[in-house]
Structures are given as structure tokens and as C-alpha cells.
């Protein structure tokens, strides 16, 4: 009856479209439309009693409702001054067009081979980004990829520079590819995955043993009862539904939903990454022990969304910088004792940071990343102390080397002579005399004087400077949420969605089942479970058909 009403509701709208003066083409279209309705109503009358068919009819009606948009569109174009109604329907047609277009785009984007192609391209670009040296000056690429001798016969510096491969991970091609991938992710989730869930959630009983036998796994248990099977499946963690002689059981439904979660988590990470790129501040500073800096002076914005906060006015004071050493003399850890002072000079926070243990204050994170040798305090012939600035010396290798020079003798003579001091770390200073010959090694604080060419030198202290990285990153909470979701959903995705159908067929039980992932383990598990179903040894007249649940 409901569907009959809907027909009645639909019919009054039909004459309205007919009132408008229109040409023959539209007439024919309208007629076709009307004919369809007639057919529908005929069908309805013939099969009013069958509920299944009623459903079918209502679907047909929906279908006929979908037909009008092209008609309305044409009408809007032809009857330009057709009044308000025509205008309205014209707009509706525009929406329809947009809808159709967006559906086409969705269909293209959710195409799995395309998505796979995108992933492969992203992977290839990343690989290329590690092969080509990143962030060098153009001259470097002129030399490395010369035009007269191209790599692989075609790859020259023109390719690198025009395509932006010298900064691959921020190049428009790479970012565009990622954006396309994100669009595909969204489209695929929307058009493919969510419908799968809708289907998977439906419990469907199978009504014929033949259908059950067609499943990937099937077996027949003679002289068994479906209730026993249900109990055993329940014991194995299945959700079991019994309706008359048929049984439906499933397990691991979450494994079907989880891939959607994986996609959403990927999108969340991408959003977080975009926020990070657009809204963060970064900066690094090397501060000698005992000096101050203001956070806002160090930080530079990275994107258009970067906005400074109140905490940028905070001043940072480096109370102390020191290193821990292993017995072998190698550095084991760097520490910096920092005090944060607000505008009035009051200490708001104090912490000793080290690598892997940053300081966080008001959205700003301060990392210990580097170190340097600032000054050497010495006594020269018991005078001083003098502060000698240490200069970093470039040598091949990763290890740092610092050096300084203490002039001796005449300051006015054209040839300045003096003592050279070199240091690899803050622990020991190597001293060389005026002729460049090695004279000795002294530790700071040892108070042990060394005599070099008549000059008595005492090394009082070695003052290091702490290399700090500062940043604010509003994207981190989003990205971390994405990370958490991705880990969780990837783990859940390992679950296999197993479905089992069974039916009491006389004294026998026909069992069939399928699973989406653990296709190798599933038959083994099923065999194990079915072995435990008890065999009924009583006379066949007492079979449990009437037990019902």
C-alpha cells in the first residue's frame, strides 16, 4: 500500500511538467516518461500481494524520478522566460550536471589501477629524490648532469632544474602527485569501501544447500545438528545467527572495516603534514654558555599560516652547557641547562635538555642538536684570564676541530708568532709552539701550567656553546592522531572476515564458508571445528528439526 501512495504522490507532479508549452521533442520525452509510469503502476496492480515485488516497484519509481533532470534542463534552455518554475528547474539541471560530472570524476579517481599507478609514481619520484643530490646550487647540477654527456642518454641538468628535482620533496610534481593520491584515497573510500561495509553488515542466510556448497569451502556433516554447530562456532568466537534450519555466522568483521580506517588515517596524516608545512616556525641558534636569546628572534615562519604566539617573547638563558664522555673519551651525551624568562625577567621554566629530551613550553620545542667550542680562557704568564675565541677548522671527516692562536712577543713585528691550540672537544687542548711543533696536552681546570718558548700558559676553562633547534609545529597533534589510528587500523586489518553458512538438510548439515584474507588457515580451522561437532547416533526419526531457537 505504501508504494501505491508514493505513486499517487508522484502523479500530481507529472501534469505540472506537461503544462508548459513545449515542442514535439519534449512532448515525446514527456510521453515516454508517462509511459514508464503507466508500466510501473500496471506492475504494481499485478503484484500487490508480494512484498518482494513491492520493493522492486519502489526501486523502479526511484529510477523514474531520476529520468526527469535532462528533460528539465532542456526545458529551462528552451523556455528562457518561462517564469520562476522554469528557472528553478534549470538550476536543478545545473546541479544535476555538476553531480554527474563529480560522479564521473569520482569514478575515475576511485579506479584502483590509477591509484596503484599513483603510488608507483610517488615511489619512483622518492627513489629519484634520493639518487639526485638535493638542495645543491645550480652549478652543482650543471657539472653533475652535463648536456654533452647525459645520464642514460637523455637526463641532463635541464630536467633536474625545470622539473624541480633538485628539491624533490617540495617540488610541485611530487606534491601534486601526493594531492592526487589523497583525492584517490577519498574517492575510493567513498565509492568502494563504504558500500562494501554496507553489504558486509547485512546478515544474509542462504536458503538452499546448493548455494552453500558453491562457497570456497564446503563440507557436509552426516547425522549432525545445526544447533551443535552453532554452539561450537560460538565457542570459536563467531557471532552466530540461527533462523529455522539455516545458520549464518561471522567473525572478524572489524577486518573489513579497518581498511577504511587505514585510508582515513592516511588522510589525517596528510592533513597534519600540510598543517605542519604551512603553519610552523623553525630556527636554529648556537649560543655560548652564559648568554641569552629571544625565541622570536630565532624562529622564522615556514608557511602562510604561521602566526607568532605570546610565548615568542620569552627569553632563553643558557646556564650551562656540558658533555658526558665514555671511558674511551668519546662523547656520550650533550646537556644544556636552560632557563626561560618572561618579559619581566621572571624565570618561568628551567630544564636541562639533552639529545632525545627536548624542552617544551607554550607550543615551542627546544632541541639539543649540535655543539660548538666558543672560547678558551687562559692565563698567560699569570696574567688574565684572557678569552680566546675558538674558530671551527674545516677538515675532512665528520669530526669537529677547533683552533685558536695566542700571539707571543712583539705585537708590532710584521711576522706574528705565537702558540696554536687545537681541540676536538671540551676535554683536552693540544698546544703547539711558535714553530708548529707539538708541545703538550692540557685539560681545562687542571691548573697545570705549560711552558712554551718562555711563555707560561695555564688553561683555565673551555667554554662551549650549545647548538639548539627551535620549532613550533601545530600539525604534530594531528599527525600523531593519524599515526595512532594508522597503527591500530593496520593491525585490525590483519583480521580476516570469515563467514559461514550452514543448513540442516534432513539429518545432514551442509556447511559452507569463505574468508577474505586467511584463505590458507581457514579450511584448517574449519576442519578442526567441524571435527568437534558431535555425531547423533540416535534413530533418524528424532532429528532436531523442530528444536528451533
Amino acid at each position, binding site marked *: 500500500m505504501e508504494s501505491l501512495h508514493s505513486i499517487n504522490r508522484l502523479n500530481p507532479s507529472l501534469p505540472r511538467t506537461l503544462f508548459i508549452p513545449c515542442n514535439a521533442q519534449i512532448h515525446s520525452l514527456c510521453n515516454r516518461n508517462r509511459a514508464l509510469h503507466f508500466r510501473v503502476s500496471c506492475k504494481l496492480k499485478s503484484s500487490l500481494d508480494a512484498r518482494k515485488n513491492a520493493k522492486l516497484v519502489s526501486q523502479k519509481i526511484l529510477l523514474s524520478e531520476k529520468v526527469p533532470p535532462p528533460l528539465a534542463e532542456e526545458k529551462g534552455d528552451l523556455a528562457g522566460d518561462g517564469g520562476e518554475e522554469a528557472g528553478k528547474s534549470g538550476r536543478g539541471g545545473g546541479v544535476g550536471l555538476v553531480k554527474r560530472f563529480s560522479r564521473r570524476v569520482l569514478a575515475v579517481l576511485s579506479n*584502483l*589501477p590509477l*591509484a*596503484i599507478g599513483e*603510488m*608507483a609514481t*610517488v*615511489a619512483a619520484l*622518492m*627513489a629519484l*629524490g*634520493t639518487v639526485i643530490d*638535493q638542495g645543491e646550487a645550480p652549478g652543482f647540477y650543471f657539472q653533475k648532469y652535463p648536456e654533452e654527456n647525459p645520464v642514460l642518454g637523455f637526463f641532463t641538468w635541464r630536467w633536474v632544474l625545470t622539473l624541480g628535482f633538485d628539491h*624533490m*620533496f617540495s617540488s610541485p610534481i611530487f606534491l601534486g602527485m601526493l594531492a592526487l593520491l589523497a583525492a584517490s584515497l577519498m574517492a575510493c573510500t567513498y565509492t568502494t569501501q563504504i558500500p562494501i561495509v554496507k553489504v558486509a553488515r547485512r546478515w544474509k542466510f542462504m536458503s538452499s544447500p546448493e548455494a552453500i556448497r558453491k562457497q570456497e569451502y564446503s563440507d557436509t556433516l552426516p547425522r549432525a545438528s545445526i544447533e551443535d554447530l552453532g554452539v561450537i562456532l560460538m565457542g570459536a568466537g563467531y557471532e552466530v545467527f540461527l533462523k529455522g534450519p539455516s545458520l549464518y555466522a561471522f567473525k572478524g568483521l572489524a577486518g573489513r572495516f579497518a581498511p577504511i580506517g587505514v585510508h582515513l588515517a592516511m588522510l589525517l596524516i596528510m592533513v597534519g*603534514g600540510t598543517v605542519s608545512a604551512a603553519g610552523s616556525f*623553525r630556527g636554529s641558534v648556537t649560543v655560548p654558555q652564559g648568554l641569552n636569546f629571544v625565541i622570536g628572534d630565532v624562529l622564522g615562519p615556514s608557511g602562510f599560516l604561521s602566526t607568532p604566539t605570546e610565548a615568542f617573547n620569552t627569553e632563553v638563558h643558557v646556564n650551562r652547557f656540558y658533555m658526558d664522555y*665514555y671511558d*674511551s673519551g*668519546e*662523547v*656520550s*651525551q*650533550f646537556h644544556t641547562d636552560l632557563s626561560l624568562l618572561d618579559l619581566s625577567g621572571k624565570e618561568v621554566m628551567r630544564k636541562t635538555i*639533552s*639529545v*632525545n*629530551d*627536548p624542552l617544551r613550553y607554550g607550543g615551542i*620545542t627546544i*632541541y639539543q*642538536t649540535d655543539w660548538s667550542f666558543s672560547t678558551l680562557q687562559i692565563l698567560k704568564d699569570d696574567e688574565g684570564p684572557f678569552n680566546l675565541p675558538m674558530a671551527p677548522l674545516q677538515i675532512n671527516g665528520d669530526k669537529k676541530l677547533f683552533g685558536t692562536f695566542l700571539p707571543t712577543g712583539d705585537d708590532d713585528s710584521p711576522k706574528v708568532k705565537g702558540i696554536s691550540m687545537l681541540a676536538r672537544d671540551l676535554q683536552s687542548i693540544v698546544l703547539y709552539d711558535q714553530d708548529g711543533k707539538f708541545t703538550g696536552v692540557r685539560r681545562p681546570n687542571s691548573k697545570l701550567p705549560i711552558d712554551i718558548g718562555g711563555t707560561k700558559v695555564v688553561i683555565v676553562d673551555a667554554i662551549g656553546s650549545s647548538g639548539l*633547534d627551535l*620549532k613550533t*609545529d601545530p600539525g*604534530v597533534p594531528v*599527525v*600523531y592522531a593519524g*599515526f595512532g589510528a*594508522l*597503527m591500530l587500523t*593496520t*593491525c585490525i*586489518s*590483519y583480521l580476516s572476515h570469515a563467514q559461514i553458512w550452514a543448513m540442516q538438510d534432513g539429518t545432514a548439515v551442509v556447511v559452507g564458508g569463505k574468508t577474505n*584474507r*586467511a*584463505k*590458507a*588457515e581457514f579450511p*584448517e580451522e574449519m576442519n578442526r571445528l567441524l571435527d568437534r561437532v558431535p555425531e547423533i547416533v540416535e534413530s533418524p526419526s528424532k532429528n532436531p528439526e523442530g528444536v528451533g531457537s
Partner: protein
Amino acid sequence: MIFFTLEHILTHISFSIVSIVITIYLISLSVDEIIGLYDSSEKGMIATFFCITGLLVTRWIYSGHFPLSNLYESLIFLSWSFYIIHMVPYVKKHKNYLRAITAPTTIFTQGFVTSGLLTEMHQSEILVPALQSHWLMMHVSMMVLGYAALLCGSLLSVALLVITFRKVLRIFSKNNNFLNDSFSFGEIQYMNERNNVLLSPSFFSSRNYYKAQLIQQLDHWGYRIISLGFIFLTIGILSGAVWANEAWGSYWNWDPKETWAFITWTLFAIYLHTRTIKNLESVNSAIVASIGFLIIWICYFGVNLLGIGLHSYGSFNLH
């Protein structure tokens, strides 16, 4: 000193057992499956597993940190992970083809680790400041477990490809006399199979049936183990990102090792997606997984070999 001696003993015991086990495997593969020999090789694998566990624990105790700070240690851990993957079906009493892949892989890794190539890396090194974190255990163990599982899975796929295309290869070898020798081993196996199958009444159909079944089994197990490895890889990469945010100031730096791990991740994501295309044969996804085999080695070794980027802790010293 006692630790060094202990480590030395454990290394040698495990290597000796492994050599015996590989001999047994070769015998049972080429001649016949002797149940007793097979069982003893299984016992050998278990003994080696305990030796390596002991080795790792010893290193952990005397170095004071989780033994994953350089390439040698991570290789030991890799072969330990292979043993784990090898042991799990044994404990769960599954009979599958995974074990035929894991056993030789373990043996080769173990052989490579203990061979003279990397002797100068054997001594445990001090931890640089950036590695002194609790994340080390989580990140590196997950990555290595992931590599191990993915390597096993992709080897299963390689096996699948070899079995599928063996006919083609044989034809190829007939045309080319030079290649004939190299495929004679496959020929012997084939003959073996033939002899067994001759007993059954329907000769051709059953042979094809067994072949198809074998391919299907390889496919299913490869998929399962790659999914598992993918989980480990995901957790490993993400925990690494969180750690990087603590130590280096950013959760992603596009450092070569990071990038290659991501490439590996993307490739296996492609593999998992090719599986969902219904009308695509298992051969296609197997090809993707076989490419993954190469990519993992580039990621695991290649980046360290070049010693570039922030992950250059475990690099070779080739001078």
C-alpha cells in the same frame, strides 16, 4: 672477557648447526624426504634459535643497551626474526611451505653474519647520543621484524613465479644449450615429481592439480606473511617518526633511509592493493612482491653502504 668467550662459543655453535641443517635440507630436497632426518633438522633449527637468543642476550648484558646499534647486530636480529617466523608454524602445528623458505633464508643470513666479511664490526660499539632512547628498541626491532617477514613473503612470491614459469624456463633451456646445465637441477626435481605422480591413475590432471594447489598455497601464505610484515613495517616507520620528532626536531626529514623505508611501504601497499583486484592473477601481485625483495635490500643495505643521511650509524667501514 667471559662475555666475549661466551659470544664466541655461541656464534660457532650456531654456525656449525646451521651448516649441518643446510646439508640435511639439501639431501631431503634432492634425494628423498627422510622423516628422521627432517625431524633432526628441525631440532637443529631450534637449537640454533636458542644459541642466537643467547648471543643477543649476552650482547645486551655486556653492552648495556639493546643490541641493535650497528649493522652486524641488526643482521643477527634479522636472522633471529627469521627463526621466529620459522618457529611459529612449528609451534602451531601448521604444515606449510613457509618453512621451506625460512630455513634457507635464515641459514644464509646467519652465514653472512658470521662470515669474515664483517669481522671488524663484530665488537659492540658505543651508542651515539641520538640513539640513546627507549625508542631504539621499539623502532629498530619492529623495522627488522618487518624486513624479515616481508623478505619471507617476497621469497614465497619468487618461488611462486619460478614454479609458474618453470615450463617456460625449460623450453628456454632447451633452445639454449648454454643454459641447459643450470636448469638440470629443476629437471631432476621434475623427474622426481613425475615418478611420484606415475602411481596415481590420472597422470596429467593430477600433476596440474598439485601444481595449482601449490601455487595457491604459496600465494595465500605469501599474502599472509606480507600483511604481517606490513604491520611491523608500519609500526616501525611510525615509531621512528615519533622518535625523530623527539631527537631531530621533525617527524619526517626525507632522509634517504626514511625515504627508502617509505618506498618499501608504498610498494607493499601496492602489493596489498593488487590483491584486491579480482580478475588479476596471483602472478601479477607476485611480481610486485618480487620487486619488493630488491627494494628491501636497497633500503636495508644500500643506504648503509653509501653511509649517507642521518641513519649512517651502522655503515660499513670499507677503508
